[in-house]
């Protein structure tokens, strides 16, 4: 088991290496002079020379990569071209809203999707199943960012139940903060609920068609126990795996949602940085997002290890 854990943990390094390589190559394989891209709009020749020197752009590419990696390993992701602040500081100051939004969305979506998917799987072709199936397709088809405007129109402008936008300081009242996040979470949940519901339903159907569920029924235990202890419990791992994969979707949604609802998170930082050609920020964010995703997958796999005795055994 420890061998497996070690091997799994060791796997993180090559993957992260590749992530770093891609992020690095993104700048270097694209058309145009990397220095010009980094320099952005203030591209005086002196500035370019300065940037070339600072980023070792006159060195051979592998060497550049190595030095860049060395900087990254020391926690140095460079400084923003526009504001002059360290990229790490900028990212750190923007993490909270994104994490809160992502977590609440995941929590809310799971809370809705788990029972919905389970009901759909248990009562196949029933009315709930039909509605849920319809929603699963529609929820991922509809451009959810359009939904945001209608939610705002109805709940914030017409009914005045909820705030339109913004991310107040949590110190000024956690309730107030949550209130501001209701609409963003609802928006972002549109596709996420669809995906999770679909996952839950598929996973549960899979498990419920397995032989051991029939065995459980043959024991004469209640149907609820069968569904919960033999169905959902066994379906939990595949569901968690997919939840790990939803990360990417969530990040994508967060970028859009933050722009609409004016949440000062990573997503807006990214869009701003991209529009402003603030390349070090873009690079830093992609690298960190990649790292987060890799670690998340590691966590999911280790969770497997903890909860699936078969994996543990090998």
């Amino acid at each position, binding site marked *: 088991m420890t*061998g497996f854990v070690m091997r799994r943990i060791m796997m993180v390094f090559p993957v992260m290496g590749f992530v770093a390589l891609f992020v690095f190559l993104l700048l270097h394989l694209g058309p145009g002079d990397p220095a010009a891209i980094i320099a952005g709009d203030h591209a005086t020749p002196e500035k370019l020379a300065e940037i070339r020197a600072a980023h070792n752009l006159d060195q051979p590419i592998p060497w550049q990569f190595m030095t860049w990696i060395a900087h990254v390993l020391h926690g140095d992701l460079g400084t923003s071209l526009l504001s002059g602040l360290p990229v790490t500081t900028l990212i750190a100051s923007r993490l909270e809203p994104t994490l809160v939004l992502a977590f609440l969305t995941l929590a809310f979506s799971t809370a809705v999707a788990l029972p919905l998917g389970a009901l759909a799987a248990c009562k*196949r*072709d029933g009315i709930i199943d039909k509605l849920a199936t319809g929603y699963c397709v529609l929820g991922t088809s509809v451009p959810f960012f359009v939904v945001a405007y209608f939610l705002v129109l109805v709940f914030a402008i017409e009914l005045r139940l909820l705030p339109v936008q913004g991310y107040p300081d949590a110190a000024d009242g956690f309730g107030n903060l949550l209130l501001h996040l209701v609409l963003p979470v609802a928006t972002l949940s549109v596709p996420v609920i669809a995906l999770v519901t679909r996952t839950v339903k598929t996973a549960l159907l899979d498990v419920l068609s*397995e*032989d*051991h569920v*029939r*065995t*459980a*029924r*043959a*024991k*004469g*235990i*209640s*149907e609820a*126990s069968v569904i919960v*202890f*033999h169905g959902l*419990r*066994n379906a939990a791992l595949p569901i968690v795996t997919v939840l790990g994969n939803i990360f990417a979707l969530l990040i994508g949604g967060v970028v859009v949602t933050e722009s609409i609802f004016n949440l000062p998170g990573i997503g807006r930082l990214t869009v701003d940085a991209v529009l402003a050609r603030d390349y070090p920020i873009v690079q830093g964010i992609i690298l960190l997002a990649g790292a987060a995703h890799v670690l998340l997958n590691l966590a999911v796999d280790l969770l497997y290890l903890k*909860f*699936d*005795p*078969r994996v543990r*055994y*090998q």
Partner: protein
Amino acid sequence: MSQPLLQLHGLSASQRDGRKLGRPVLKDVSLHLDKGETLCVVGRSGAGKSLTALAVMGLMPPRDMAITGGAIRLQGEDLLNANPKRLRQLRGPRMAMVFQEPMTALNPLMTIGRQIEETLAGHGVTARRERAIEMLKRVGLSGAARFHAAFPHELSGGQRQRAMIAMALILKPLLLIADEPTTALDVLTQKQILGLLRELTAEAGTAIVYITHDMGVVADIADRVAVMHHGRILETGAAADVLAHPQCAVTRALIAAGTDISVKPQNKNLSGEPVLTVEGLVKTYEAGKSLRRNGETIGAVRGISLSLRSGRTLGIIGETGSGKTTIARSIMRLTDPDSGTIHVGGTELTALSGLRLKPYRKKVQIVFQDPYRSLNPRRTIGQSISEGPCNYGLCRKTARERAQRLLTLVGLTEDVIDLYPHQFSGGERQRIALARALALEPLALIADEPVSALDMATQATVLQLLRDIQEKTGVAIMLITHDLRVAAQMCDDIALLRAGRIVESGSAAQLFSAPQTAYARALLNALPGRPAKHDNKRRASG
């Protein structure tokens, strides 16, 4: 007691697709079973045996199957009209079921103990842990506490099936339905499990419905027998009567296939030259990649030497995991052996690979166990058969003509050449696979469990075909099987394999008449339906 314990009256069922009813799968099935009685339901696969059992338990998949008529009564109580709650109350204390695949039938994420206790909890029994451990002891799992905390994958097949039985019998049901509980197990384990079932049910007076396709088992345990075919009961009666005086052809075929060993007559062709020689073959698997069972690496081969002569059939016999298939795969170079030599027609193969190996590949060919997976579903059988010759440069037209000839040779017609595999039955596919192997005109043919996926009647015809082909072409055959009856019918020579080593080898006649080793004797004894010749029946079951 005047009324029978279980009575099925005119039970009919059909497949369904949504609201539409499809093909009928059970037709007017009537059965009855008295308290303490053992009824064997026999039939080929697809005969409706398992469905009948599931219908009794109320576990028929409601989306796929629908009961269209008849009645099922347990102690007079109408099960078909019982509400789900009542059915749940009955399952466990009144009726229980043991399934075929103990691996998939157990929840892989739950300890054995909890799965047993769940039955108890479902019916409001207390002191569950104690009772579960007690039951585990009774099914012969010594060190019951350890098994109580174990997960299914940590157990061997036999142990799992014991755990299944513990689960089924813990509430002392009146009726136990056992659906091919030993089919997935080795003969030795099968014998033990049968003994255990008998013992435990005898104590509690539990009646058994035992579903099997093996008449040997019927002979061993049945009080009465019901033969099913295409969803119908063909005949029922006392076991002894049916075995002795079968009324219909299906029954006779089943009996013929299942009850006794008929040893092949001596092959006169003693002088066949060796076409394939294996010396000191070793193949072990890395710990991380193999399936491990009780700490022992399975499937490994630890120093095998054998030789195959043209015109003769060598049987490699062993239980699951004894390394039979590894030998075949090593010879075919589907896996690379760790050490040892393989000579084909005088050339050593283990040192060759890639293109240099190609000229020798055609000299040995293989027929796999599973005819459903060994043919590419997207290629016509003509393409499949001529693939080999084409690889060796035969032009398409010639290869196609050869394919047609071979199709006739294996007992099919030429005009099927452009059909796809799914349009054939299992037996026919195995014939096609055989034709494909023969297309390269090999010196030696390895047949890896060629008939174990087929039902008894088909088995016989395919085996006959193999014999005929050997007679016509003089090809040397290495027949890999776990089935002693098959081996006896087919083989001139036998190598008995256990845990990667040959424990006994020699002529078939000698092995079957006078086995030298204790292991060989035990195997022969364990064959169901055979009168105990070499050992005491009671002891073997203990």
